[in-house]
């Protein structure tokens, strides 16, 4: 099967529950959460291919929605990601204050080269706004992150923020592109390992290697 992309990058969304992470993701992937997308094995609705300076980047986005209370689970996602979107809700001051906590969690568990951007979501709700653009900008600067205000409702700045993070992650990993390829192959080989039991049957169908 011909590869439809050159590089695979993994991004993830972090932030308090209710800040609209799932809606952001939904908008970005132009997806509809169709039943088959949720329950069917192998179909990943959180994939999108972006063209960054001529490189076809397959972006796989992980969302920890619904799993926030499983600290031990979510923390391990950080380690496997190359880029992280820290999301807060501009109408919810608490979610903004908690960004500090999320950022320190990332520092503790994620590799150093992980790229981060700050996203203030729900910016269409101007009358309910509790966190100003300046506050967001200031916090982002203090962490040396890029900052975007987005609205999943009006589809504002969503593609821009995801693209920017992808671009940053791609540049950070440019030198390690070979390494990235390796990690993809790792997935496939461990996938084979999982299939150990099924391996006996694989002989009948030896070409089954790609899960993408």
């Amino acid at each position, binding site marked *: 099967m011909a590869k439809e992309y050159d590089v695979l990058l993994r991004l993830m969304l972090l932030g308090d529950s209710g800040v609209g992470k799932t809606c952001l993701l939904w908008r970005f992937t132009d997806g509809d959460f169709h039943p088959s997308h949720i329950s069917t094995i192998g179909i990943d609705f959180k994939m999108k291919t972006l063209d960054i300076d001529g490189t076809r980047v397959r972006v796989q986005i992980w969302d920890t929605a619904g799993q926030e209370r499983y*600290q*031990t689970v979510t923390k*391990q996602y950080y380690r496997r990601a190359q880029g992280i979107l820290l999301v807060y809700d501009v109408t919810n001051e608490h979610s903004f204050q908690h960004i500090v906590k999320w950022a320190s969690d990332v520092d503790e568990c994620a590799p150093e080269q992980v790229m981060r951007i700050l996203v203030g979501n729900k910016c269409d709700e101007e009358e309910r706004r509790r966190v100003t653009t300046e506050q967001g900008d200031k916090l982002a600067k203090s962490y040396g992150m890029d900052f975007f205000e987005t609205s999943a409702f009006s589809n504002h700045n969503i593609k821009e923020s995801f693209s920017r993070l992808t671009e940053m992650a791609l540049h950070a990993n440019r030198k390690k592109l070979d390494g990235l390829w390796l990690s993809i192959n790792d997935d496939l080989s461990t996938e084979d390992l999982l299939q150990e039991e099924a391996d006996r049957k694989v002989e009948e169908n030896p070409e089954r290697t790609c899960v993408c």
Partner: protein
Amino acid sequence: MCFGAFLKQKLAKQAKGHAHLSMLRRYIGARRHLLLDNGHQPSIRGCHQLDQSLVRMSQPIRVKDKVLQKVFRHDHSFVSLRMPLNASVEDVMAAMKIPARDHILVKVKSSGVREQLKMDARATSSFLGLNERIFLCTADQADKLTPLQEQLGPDMNTIYALENMSSKIIAAQLTSYDWELFNAMHETELLYYVLGKKKFPNSPTANLERFIQRFNEVAYWVATELCLCADQAKRARLLKKFITIATILYSHHNMNSFTAVMYGLTNSAVSRLHKTWKKVPNKMKKRFRRYEHMLDPFSNHEAMRQVVAKLSPPYIPYLPLILKDLTFIHEGNKSYRNGLVNFEKMSMIAKNLRTVKDCRNQPYLPISPQNNLMDKMFLKSPLKQKLTFSDQSLSVEGAQIICLYIRNLKVIDDQRKLSQLSRNIEP
């Protein structure tokens, strides 16, 4: 007589001369201290006072239940309150006769991170994280709050006890406790959890929360024990033991503790211990990698879904995945379309809840023969004098001690501290 006192008495009588038992006695002794200080079973954090008798089956926590809630002050003194499960912060303050305008309730983590509780927040005790505690203070004291000693977790491992318990027994005890907690939880709690407590203020999810925190506890227990073990040879033995335990848990179809142990083993503080990992035989490492692959969220958790699809009841599911699916179904689909109920969405939700119901539609039959000991314990059969942890000659009492150990794990839940310990033992 509380269970700690009972154990101490029994152990004192029978275990003199056994080094590992005296160590375990100290562990349980410390636990007793915790119980007296806290007045509640630590693994349930803030809920339900521990029974006066021995180990007892975990009962479902109901909305109208009164639970013991401990509120600490900045000087680490405390007040115990017996409050309805669903009491609000305001109710707690009123019960303490504290004027709400001067004081606040703050949730403090073991890492020292604080979070002020809202006055209308309900059932706060059931939402406490692993080593989190609730403090009462004035607004200007909040910044100076420090975590309690008990929140920081143990500074000694329990390898002396673990080495004397077979992996089979540990796995069986983990599984039987999981089954109790899992059965205590009604599947509708998943729905309340996903739709949010705001929509269902009177439908607490305490049993689900307890089940979730147990998962975190087991995962941190694995990491804690390994990171506290300074002796490399012992550490390697322990690591192999945990992999074996994971294998047995998997064969029990207990995806809850299986994944919890795996998350403990893949914790960054553990996975960086290269010297220790080198001592794991290749065959075992290969098996471990196969398990590790199941945790990979790649392609919407395809690996885990494939494994779970093959299981037949009774089994304990990997709940994070079900909660994730429910969340996506709920957030990604409107409940009404053109004024009509979105039936497709409702049936997708129902299907997931039914999965949880179906996987326990048959009674769990203990896989290991020693598990019958649990029944004997609850029937209070006469205790045998013999005390040993070995598989073949496990007495009722030996089983009780293992059972108590497994249900009262002490853990470090501060990742920073675990990483530090890990760097200390293998720079």
